[in-house]
């Protein structure tokens, strides 16, 4: 039986959709405007110079933008991969092995989930510079790898998706722990690991504060920081609005592409149990 659509919920949802989509639409339209058109023509009438804008963006300071994009890809790609691996390993260990202090470790991690990363950025900076790594690629990568939330998720997922019986059976058959992890647990945990990878990727890609504090050299900037330097050139010089807008548009494309390709793994996650009945 189909329930009639309530008017009020529909309205609220439509409003929510507009709230989320209008800014995206604005970026799309604004990216097509030349700097002369940006503040002179009406908000949602498309401009004429999307190609010229992309060209300007590419040639800005000898291709600095693409360097920032490549940096972001490196930070987010490598960081998320390592983070997924580490989270998977830790989560599996916490879920499947009983050892002294396990609850303590886990509770400490849970507490870590509650601490916003913003609060940690400055202590992390001081620690990183203590070991002489400030203003290096590692200074952004290392803090991004450890994700309490990722470990938490991996543990929950491992506990639910990897049945004790299967692990026991493998042990009885004489498989080593490494083999069990690699051949049995990891495939079962794959959807969970993809989830961890995805959200870490997005979090690192969008992260502003950590690289802002860690990095001084603009050749190591991720794209978020690069766009910020375009916008914030002070009162005395015009902000490079057009470049920053078209740059923001280009910089979210990889995220959209990633979501579209990895989405199906996510869906699998919800449908498939660990042991198919």
């Amino acid at each position, binding site marked *: 039986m189909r329930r009639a659509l309530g008017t009020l919920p529909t309205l609220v949802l439509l409003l929510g959709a507009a709230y989320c989509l209008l800014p995206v639409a604005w970026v799309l339209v604004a990216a097509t405007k030349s700097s002369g058109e940006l503040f002179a023509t009406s908000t949602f009438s498309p401009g004429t110079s999307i190609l010229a804008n992309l060209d300007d963006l590419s040639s800005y300071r000898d291709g600095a933008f693409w360097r920032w994009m490549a940096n972001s890809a490196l930070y987010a790609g490598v960081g998320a991969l390592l983070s997924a691996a580490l989270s998977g390993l830790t989560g599996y260990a916490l879920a499947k092995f009983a050892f002294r202090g396990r609850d303590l470790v886990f509770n400490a991690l849970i507490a870590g989930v509650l601490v916003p990363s913003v609060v940690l950025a400055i202590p992390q900076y001081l620690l990183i510079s203590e070991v002489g790594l400030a203003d290096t690629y590692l200074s952004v990568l290392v803090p991004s790898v450890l994700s309490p939330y990722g470990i938490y998720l991996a543990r929950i997922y491992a506990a639910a998706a990897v049945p004790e019986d299967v692990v026991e059976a493998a042990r009885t058959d004489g498989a080593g722990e490494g083999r069990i992890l690699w051949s049995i647990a990891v495939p079962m945990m794959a959807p969970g690991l993809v989830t961890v990878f995805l959200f870490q990727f997005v979090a690192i890609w969008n992260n502003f*504060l950590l690289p802002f504090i860690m990095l*001084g050299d*603009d050749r190591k900037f991720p794209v978020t920081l690069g766009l910020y330097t375009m916008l914030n*050139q002070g009162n*005395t010089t015009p902000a490079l609005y057009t470049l920053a807008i078209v740059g923001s548009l280009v910089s979210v494309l990889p995220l959209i592409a990633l979501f579209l390709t990895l989405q199906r793994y996510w869906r699998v996650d919800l449908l498939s149990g660990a042991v198919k009945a």
Partner: protein
Amino acid sequence: MLSLATLIRPEIPMRFDIARKAVAAGLGLALLVGCGSSGGQEPEGPTELSFWAWAPNIEKVVDRWNAAHPDRKVVMSKQAQGDDLVTKLLTSAKAGSGPDLAQVEFQALPTLVSNDVLADIAAHASSVKGEFPDGVWQQVTLGGDGVYAIPQDSGPMMFYYRTDLFEQYGLTVPKTWDEYARTARTLRTKAPDKFLGTFSSNDPGWFAGLAQQAGGSWWSVDGDTWKVSIDDAATKKVASYWSGLVAEGAVDKTPMYTPEWNKALNDGTQIGWVSAVWAPGVLAGNAQSTVGKWAMAPLPQWDAASPRTGNWGGSTTAVTAGSKKQKAAAEFAIWLNTDPEAVAALVTDSGVYPAATKAQTGSALAKPPAFFPAQTDFYATAQRVASTAAGFTWGPNVNVAYTAYKNAFGAAITGGTDLAPALAEMQRATIDDLRASGFKVG
């Protein structure tokens, strides 16, 4: 974005005592900081200097230096401008990983000096004192014997207006603030959808410049005791003047540098702008469609008989205390801001208005800005205005005062209330913060 200044409070340094003394040193006592790591043991061989700056295209000027000095290469890193860079300099100095050189705004110098971030380069730089106007040089010495930066650019304030619309509405260029108010009202009656200007509760630097013109003196130091008088009579006069104009609707209250304001400049809703010498560059970026329609005049005066102006913006090149190559760094800073070729490149490539006296009448400024093709005497007028700029002493917590301005004035403008209590609030917040940071406050 979350303001970084709220995360790390620059004025809670590790050693209050030294911080206080350092400022006192800068302002007339003795030299206590900054000289620590300079001296004879500087490396002689080829070396690299790191430089954080935000001026557009400044890397092109740096390239000239690098071509001539391959053994002392300067490696540029573009940074976002303003308070955030100050915070970043403070943090990196604490961690010992800062650059050798940095672009620093005048008002940030006391903050950085009191936190031991900048080197005293008097030994290398005192000889270039004569290249700059006294009022400007005083700001990099903080009134003492030390030299904490080399002035790069200044921002004497001026009045910009749309010549075509002034003509259309039969307006004359206001010479005094009384005339400005009258002109604003006249315009409102003739064209109710247009404004002569706006009061920007988002730009403390703009308000500080207007206060300087009126004779305001926000910070002063006597021995090691600070005095804060942000709500002095002169500043009160400025606040109540704008308060009145906003209340009667004679001027707009859209903050500057917002998309809304940019649009208003473009479509002629705003037909004037109280700004500074660098305005042509901003207009070229924000209001491209109005090219050739603007003109510049000196700022309206409180007392037409003795013209004055204030500074909005302006920055320096400073050497950091953490640098191990202070001598080489100071040489670069001096070259960048006094060498005729370098300064000419700064003017043409970065579009700055040079602080160096000679450069203000130099050939790089012979032609008017491209956005103002008709006003051939633009830079001659600018130079005349610049020479009337009032001196000013900045305090060690300008960032706090500025944040208080944005909050208090912003709330007053939004709520439609008087600006006088906002000014009092700004004064209170600034004094409280100085006390809390361990400075002696008189």
